[in-house]
């Protein structure tokens, strides 16, 4: 048996475990054991890492660690608060009138012709090492005139051995703003920013003409020198100061300054990457970022792994010394004042499927995990007070749960152009109000989101200015305030509203025909059948027949754009923590039909529009809150949406993962995290002891099953020989018998 084990299993074991002591199922090299590395997973490969193009959450997870926009969000403080990132101090908006004279800060927004933000960056910030900066002894760039011959053996950026760096300047920030209008790039915010940054729209046309002129002479991939084309709205004042000029007043612009769209890009990088032959090898700025942030992308194989390493040139930043009252108790201020980042390396492995991701988290090979609906019951339990906590099994592993209400909203919209459910007429409004009461989102969240959400009272998510908690925040159209909590109105109220709308008991009072409504959804699998059935049941409470019109996502979007949907579901993630970012979704100027804006319901109430225009340019103040309250009242009254719910994000973290405070707006969080590598290694070994007996048992079973077969085989073979040798067989005529 020992010999069998030795010869059959030992080579397998040797193959599996390259080095002794390392768990056999460890997907990482044994040499990395105990190191200060953060292990994470990604399911979908990022499309863009160029900050001018990148807008997806899976992309910003990487770009936010590499690029440094001028501002950032405070990691610990709530409500969300902007603080300097690379700037010496927070920029202050300066307002100017039509005649160019500076106006006082409290001037009425209508008098402001333009706003200037003068931004001063800290001196001494340097870029990560990168070949674009490498120079020879004569001071000339080493890699700015690469020939086809130079690139023969170059397959990735690291194949260019020399790197350099230089100091960050104000020009780099201006360069990036100009890149928003680059004709060969697709910045998703060009349209929006063209409405605000002075001259950006014209600049886009100028660059387009310049690129077309250049195309004929140097080809379509040639370097377009943005520095030779000035932009009025973004100008360099001195080496460390630049100025952005905004049309009118746009206070939300400050939030944009915390996004990678406004991070610096050195012209050398653009010049380097536009050389012929590099794009063919996937060596582009979209693939290999160049930043000043705490980390730099050192390996980019988005099919398998993406690795961030500590940027040796990072200017340094101290961990925050202030937070919320509970933060100290939670140990979140233990590192106050210490230099960041704490983690040396971040390894993002690609795991497309949730099952392997979840299991690897449980084995300690990922440091954190989200919770899928499949694993929810395994991970989370509710206490008697209805509070979510980890199960005993998770607790035994030292896993903890962190929750945070997302700055998002999932809603059900009515197409306000629809002749049945749309419009501001009294019957249509009452119909929508009746449905708002009937669709029980408390039940929906409980059944389909495992309780991970808060039924919404309006469009603004919690944590954002304008959102009100408690009694004053309750939607009186749908809820009554009873026993210190909102109570959904009884279905009889909804039925009464339906009757007032002209559909007593769900029948058209004029024609007697049953009321049939259409719910447009994207094509769904069998898993979603239950939620659609549930939705039908909600409408059935009012005797309304709900017909589900399922289609693929493209057709669904097309229906919304053309205003052909009747009732639909949609969601919104906030770009920044300002009520304007939510209330714009119902602004008449943003109607999807005609204006191709963000207002998918095509809601258009003149009073709401007027208030929105007033509110959007205001600083947070009691007056602004009052206007928002009024706007919310209008919305609740008109009910263009069923307000749905604000999702709650649940995250699981291992015991060795420290300094975690979920922050839904700040994305550059990795620099704050801390990992205890030795504890992780100890736990990994403990949890992943190889279990050999099933393999041994399997081999024994195989051998046992083969024994009778071998005996039978030998008997048969011997039988053949016996027959061959038998005298009877050799007798004449015996073969014919």
């Amino acid at each position, binding site marked *: 048996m020992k010999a069998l084990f030795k010869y059959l299993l030992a080579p397998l074991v040797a193959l599996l475990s390259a080095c002794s002591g390392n768990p056999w*199922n460890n997907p990482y090299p044994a040499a990395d054991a105990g190191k200060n590395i953060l292990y994470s997973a990604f399911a979908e490969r990022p*499309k863009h890492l160029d900050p001018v193009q990148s807008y997806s959450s899976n992309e910003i997870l990487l770009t936010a660690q590499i690029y440094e926009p001028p501002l950032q969000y405070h990691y610990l403080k709530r409500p969300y608060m902007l603080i300097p990132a690379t700037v010496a101090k927070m920029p202050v908006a300066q307002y100017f009138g039509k005649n160019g004279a500076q106006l006082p800060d409290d001037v009425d927004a209508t008098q402001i012709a333009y706003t200037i933000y003068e931004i001063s960056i800290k001196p001494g910030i340097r870029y990560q090492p990168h070949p674009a900066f490498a120079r020879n002894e004569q001071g000339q760039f080493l890699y700015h005139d690469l020939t086809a011959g130079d690139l023969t053996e170059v397959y990735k950026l690291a194949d260019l051995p020399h790197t350099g760096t230089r100091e960050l300047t104000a020009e780099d920030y201006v360069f990036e703003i100009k890149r928003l209008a680059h004709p060969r790039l697709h910045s998703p915010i060009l349209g929006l920013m063209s409405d605000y940054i002075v001259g950006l729209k014209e600049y886009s046309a100028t660059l387009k003409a310049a690129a077309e002129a250049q195309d004929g002479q140097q080809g379509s991939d040639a370097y377009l020198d943005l520095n030779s084309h000035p932009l009025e709205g973004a100008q360099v004042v001195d080496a460390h100061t630049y100025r952005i000029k905004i049309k009118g007043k746009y206070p939300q612009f400050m939030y944009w300054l915390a996004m990678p769209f406004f991070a610096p890009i050195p012209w050398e990088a653009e010049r380097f990457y536009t050389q012929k032959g590099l*794009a063919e090898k996937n060596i582009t700025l979209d693939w290999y970022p160049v930043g000043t942030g705490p980390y730099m992308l050192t390996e980019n194989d988005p*099919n398998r792994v993406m690795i961030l390493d500590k940027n040796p040139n990072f200017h340094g930043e101290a961990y925050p010394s202030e937070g919320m009252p509970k933060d100290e108790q939670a140990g979140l201020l233990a590192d106050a004042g210490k230099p960041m980042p704490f983690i040396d390396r971040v390894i993002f492995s690609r795991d497309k499927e949730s099952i*392997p991701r979840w299991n690897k988290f449980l*084995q300690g090979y990922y440091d954190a995990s989200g919770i899928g609906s499949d694993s929810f019951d395994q991970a989370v339990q509710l206490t008697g007070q209805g509070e979510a906590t980890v199960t005993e099994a998770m607790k035994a592993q030292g896993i903890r749960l962190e929750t945070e209400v997302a700055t998002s909203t999932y809603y059900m919209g009515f197409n306000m152009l629809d002749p049945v459910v749309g419009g501001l007429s009294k019957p249509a409004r009452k119909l929508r109000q009746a449905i708002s009461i009937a669709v029980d989102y408390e039940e929906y969240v409980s059944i389909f989101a495992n309780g991970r959400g808060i039924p919404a009272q309006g469009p603004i998510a919690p944590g954002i200015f304008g959102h009100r908690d408690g009694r004053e925040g309750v939607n009186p159209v749908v809820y009554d305030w009873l026993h210190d909590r909102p109570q959904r109105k009884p279905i009889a109220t909804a039925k009464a509203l339906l009757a007032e709308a002209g559909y007593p008991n769900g029948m058209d009072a004029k024609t007697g025909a049953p009321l049939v409504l259409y719910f447009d959804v994207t094509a769904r699998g069998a898993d979603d059948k239950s939620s659609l059935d549930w939705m039908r049941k909600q409408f059935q409470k009012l005797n309304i027949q709900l017909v589900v019109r399922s289609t693929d996502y493209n057709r669904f979007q097309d229906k919304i754009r053309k205003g052909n949907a009747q009732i639909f579901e949609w969601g919104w993630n906030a770009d920044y923590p300002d009520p304007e970012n939510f209330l714009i979704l119902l602004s008449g100027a943003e109607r999807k039909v005609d204006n191709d804006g963000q207002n998918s319901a095509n809601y258009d109430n003149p009073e709401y529009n007027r208030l929105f225009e007033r509110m959007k340019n205001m600083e947070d103040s009691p007056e602004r809150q009052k206007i928002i309250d009024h706007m919310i009242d209008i919305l609740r009254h008109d009910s263009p949406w069923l307000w749905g719910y604000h999702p709650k994000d649940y995250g699981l973290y291992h015991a060795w993962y420290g300094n975690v405070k979920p922050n839904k707006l700040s994305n550059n969080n990795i620099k704050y995290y801390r990992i205890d590598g030795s504890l992780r290694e100890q736990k990994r070994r403990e949890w992943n002891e190889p279990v050999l007996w099933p393999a041994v048992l399997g081999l024994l079973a195989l051998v046992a099953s083969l024994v009778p077969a071998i005996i039978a085989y030998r008997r048969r073979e011997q039988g*053949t020989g016996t027959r061959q040798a038998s005298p009877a067989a050799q007798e004449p005529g015996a073969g014919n018998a």
Partner: protein
Amino acid sequence: MLNYIIRRMLYAIPILIGVNLITFTLFFVVNTPDDMARMQLGIKRVTPEAIEKWKHERGYDKPLMFNDSEEGAAKFTRTIFFEKSAAMFVFDFGRADDGRDIAHEIKARMLPSLAIALPVFLLGLIVYITFALVMAFFRATYVDFWGVVLCVALMSISSLFYIIGGQFLISKLWHLVPISGYGGGLDAGKFLVLPVIIGVISGAGANTRWYRTIFLEEMGKDYVRTARAKGLPESIVLFRHVLRNAMIPILTGAVVVIPLLFLGSLIAESFFGIPGLGSYTIDAINSQDFAVVRAMVFLGSLLYIIGLILTDISYTLVDPRIRLE
């Protein structure tokens, strides 16, 4: 034979055009160029100008198959179909919608796909033939009976179950190999053990039964009876006579899939985190990247045709009675 091969290669051209036409039609029935642009540019804040620009840069602003605004042959050549298809016949696959070079991706991903597919293929062939021979040898005994039962059971289980079950047992419960992942060089070994074992087991039912049927059919032939009548041991009958003669149908099934091994497995690669071509194709379908889907379908069709030609050639090698004319 050379004439035959050239003729078959020429037949391949209309087949590839047909496949390309079907792919093109099916793809654009579901996705318009506007949909593709929106998918790439994102949902938030996409302007009609940005969509038009995206389409123009990639040549998707032309008519699909017939350009009424052009003259003569340009009515057909200045179309999305012609411009996107013609280049593929010289293996210029162009760029994916995210701007990355498709040929570069295919080259990089072919090896991981092969790293699973080739061992599964070779090991599978050995295991299936061995088991089929054992069952044929012990025909009409309990070994054969329970072997067939086991094969039917194995056939009836979804391949996804094998993957999830295998990951659960071998990786999660017994901690013997990593659940998923991929490494270069020798490091790849520990990641490949599980997908290869699962790949072999998941194909065992159908293939073993099929090979068993082939062997049994062969064993019923006159020459086998003659061999037995001569008193040859059953092992000699099986391995020297039956196996050799059963090679033609086995080759039919085996050789045709050899070129397709490069394309990898759609499901297994996703579950095991193998960065191969199967995973690439799934990603492209999900992201509505027509350039990649088209390239992969073209490559798949071409490799299938090559597989069929190789099968024909292999006939002549194992059966001297067959001539390719």
